[in-house]
């Protein structure tokens, strides 16, 4: 896809996010909006996948794991827009009986979801396991994992961060949605992440950095990481993002981490986001 086409998809995804969270008056719009460009690039440009024939084991295709499961509206919208399931189903988000649970789960049968996430800090371990499975199976496809920056405070992340370089997990690309915010405030105030780049480098990762809301930079970084796969080292992209990106009043604050917009706010947000693929 061209950069402009990817931007159009991302705009529609952002509309979906606002409408889903507004519709059920629940969910996490801020982080979802911020991570939209990264995951749009993965699913619409980068990953080799077969949405119409979803396979749980992901054999013969690239795989994606979302570690910070609370930004599920973003993932659900992208999966639906990519053809994993009907876009109309987005209207069921967080409602009783839905396959679109508050946090993603594979047990309700939603195509595209392979592992539950939401309890933070676990996705990188799972992605490493999936990557090891690919190696054992002789499958050269890649595994991608998106993490939040707040969840870097979880100890398990650093168990996994130590493992991947030590065991040469080179068919994995980790990405951090580095928006510098979490529920209680800025990461600097809550628990400074310090020099995240230096930390991962010290653990032995090859580290990339990009503007996680600049589609061209995202695609360039992912292209480079894919070219450098299978060379004996683990790779991670620090994607600097803006929580709430695309909606002016949701940017520059952590207040929209887990708060839905009211009718007026939703209308204002949607007026800022171009409808490109048709609302669900």
């Amino acid at each position, binding site marked *: 896809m061209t950069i402009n086409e990817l931007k159009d998809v991302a705009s529609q995804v952002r509309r979906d996010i606002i409408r889903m969270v507004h519709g059920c008056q629940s969910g996490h719009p801020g982080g979802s909006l911020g991570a939209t460009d990264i995951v749009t690039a993965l699913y619409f440009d980068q990953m080799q996948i077969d949405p119409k024939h979803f396979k749980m084991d992901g054999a013969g295709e690239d795989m994606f794991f979302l570690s910070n499961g609370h930004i599920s509206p973003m993932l659900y919208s992208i999966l639906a827009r990519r053809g994993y399931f009907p876009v109309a189903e987005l209207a069921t988000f967080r409602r009783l009986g839905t396959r679109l649970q508050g946090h993603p789960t594979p047990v309700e049968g939603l195509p595209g979801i392979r*592992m539950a996430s939401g309890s933070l800090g676990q996705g990188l*371990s*799972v992605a*490493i396991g999936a990557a090891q499975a690919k190696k054992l199976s002789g499958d050269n496809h890649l595994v991608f994992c998106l993490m939040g920056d707040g969840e870097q405070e979880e100890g398990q992340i650093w*168990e996994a961060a130590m*493992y991947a370089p030590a065991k040469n997990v080179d068919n994995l690309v980790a990405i951090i949605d580095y928006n510098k915010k979490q529920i209680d405030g800025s990461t600097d105030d809550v628990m400074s992440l310090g020099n995240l780049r230096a930390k991962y480098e010290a653990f032995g990762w090859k580290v990339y950095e990009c503007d996680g809301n600049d589609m061209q930079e995202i695609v360039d970084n992912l292209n480079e990481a894919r070219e450098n796969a299978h060379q004996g080292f683990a790779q991670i992209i620090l994607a600097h993002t803006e929580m709430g990106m695309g909606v002016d009043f949701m940017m520059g604050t952590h207040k929209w981490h887990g708060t839905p917009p009211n009718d007026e706010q939703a209308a204002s947000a949607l007026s800022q986001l171009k409808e490109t693929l048709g609302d669900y």
Partner: protein
Amino acid sequence: MKIEVQNFKDTRSGFGDGLLEAGKRNPKVVGLTADLTGSLKMGDFAKEFPERFFQVGIAEANMIGIAAGLANGGFIPFTGTFANFSSARIYDQIRMVVSYSNKNVKIAASHAGVTLGEDGATHQTLEDIGMMKMLPNMTVLVPCDYNQTKAATIAAAEHNGPVYLRFGRPKVANFTPADEPFVIGKAQMIQEGKDVSIFACGHLVWKAIEALPILKEMGINAELINIHTIKPLDVEAVLKSVAKTGCVVTAEEHMRNGGLGDSIAQVLALNNPRPLEMVAVNDVFGQSGTPDELLKHYHLDTPDIVEAVKKVIARK
């Protein structure tokens, strides 16, 4: 069942040998350990299948996540560490990516209970059966000797779904037939009787067997059933036995809260309320000592089973 002690072996060796056998039968079987290859007797598997063995280091949470990812990719991972670090330490990880996500991960939990011995309470988990049986999708196995642990390991590999496999450290009597297949969810009749039903699991099955001749001398004809599968519980076997005997003793190397006795109590209360005595640890932590000393100290020994039988029969 004919009870014949073939030798004295540790149940963890049954796991190690069972894992090797399961690995030979199915190339999808893989092993992971958190720095306890030797303690879990996984060395032979690691040597035979080095490419299918993952040394994760002392990082149990990461190990469970990696296992879930491997299982998602079609493999059958066995994680190996001590029971306490296979349960309490990583309960949320097991809950989300194994049990809730329903991934085909086998959690091999060694050194369970007080018979871990001298290391003391920090390592002597007495709560793991309770934690694991509360998780939907989870199968909980507590085999009684070397042969049965080996068979249970092979059965766990063949079963599709999460399994918690609990076994121990010390050498104990190995008495179940070597060629007996392990049927998950099917209780094992050790001795038929009519005066009392003894339901035991793990190391305490042998302690209950030792109690049988003592009871016989006292004129008590006890029925002994090995509940090697805590979940799914063989409710039919339990009720059938109780209908005959009218009273129950449970015996386990676990906390009374949440253990086998608690599961049996639920079945009785809901279906056929009968007197029940529980041989179990009652709301205290363990401590250092030899396995035999600890079994005696925490009233998990043969005389304690005899006393419980006398008490429950008096309550009939």
